[in-house]
């Protein structure tokens, strides 16, 4: 990875953390979920600060250039983050379903009481 690329990656990571903290401050995303994305940013920061890590990844997986390794790490981590959030969405869908059913059943009880 060239020094120039490292500078751009550093700027990108700083902007990324600024955006994350802004979204948390404005309560557009909760801190709990921002932390998942924060971990992803920290991994990139580590790869940026210690470029030797990328070389090691290249050697281990047989990747020819560190930039490709960077992309590979990026896609893998984003993939896992998406899996985590798919789980979150699924659990929330279940909670919403239960709430909707409970609300409808309560409404039915109120209707019955009003009729009595």
């Amino acid at each position, binding site marked *: 990875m060239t020094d120039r690329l490292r500078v751009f990656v550093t700027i990108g990571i700083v902007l990324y953390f600024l955006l994350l903290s802004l979204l948390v401050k404005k309560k557009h995303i909760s801190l709990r979920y921002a932390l998942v994305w924060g971990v992803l940013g920290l991994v990139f920061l580590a790869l940026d600060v210690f470029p030797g890590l990328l070389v090691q990844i290249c050697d281990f997986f047989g990747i020819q250039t560190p930039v490709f390794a960077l992309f590979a790490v990026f896609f893998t981590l984003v993939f896992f983050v998406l899996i985590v959030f798919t789980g979150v969405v699924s659990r929330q869908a279940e909670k919403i379903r239960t709430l*909707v*059913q409970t609300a*409808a059943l309560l409404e039915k009880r109120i209707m019955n009481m009003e009729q009595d």
Partner: protein
Amino acid sequence: MKILAIVPAYNEAANIEKTVANLKSCGSSVDYVVINDCSTDNTLDILKANDFNYISLPVNLGIGGGVQTGYKYGVENGYDIIIQQDGDGQHDPKYIKDVCAPIINGDADIVVGSRFITNEGFQSSGTRRIGIGFLSWLIKLKCGTVVKDVTSGYRAVNNKYSLFFARNYPQDYPEPEAIVSASLAGARIKEVPVVMKEREYGKSSINLKRSIYYMIKVSLAILLCKKESDI
């Protein structure tokens, strides 16, 4: 014995009046509740205007969420047998006594009204029958239960498994998966012959385009279904 028929209805304005009238013709021995799944047509207006017994979901949950609401209502109100009836008028209430009989006699926990025992009445298209046959084979492979008409929504369930379904009911395209989950939980499942009609108005929710998704989703759901702990 208290019997409840649950009728899930989504945009069934054209069918719901007749469906409920048919149910009422069974006499006072069977109560009913229509689950209006946030219909966008005037199903709700019809339910109100006719003073039908209904529950209206504020958000569309799909057939699984609707049916599960019916089970919750049935359990809350102490029904002994809960029957599922489609809101499109395909299910003739005259078979209610047939689907209830094995439960009353203690021979079964769940009874499925099947089109494929006497092969009378509406039989569905050839391709759908092949799909149903495949799912039936898959269910037999998974849990050893033999049910020919796995997609039939005409079912009767005793109070023990009504509680089970109130707690765990599969969502999108739930019928085959419900058989597997109940079977894995130890339910005795029987089939009795019924004659079904073709829906008079409106379209089935499963069109040709969705069929591939249906087969993949339901097959995976059957294979991945695991025994629920809370029975």
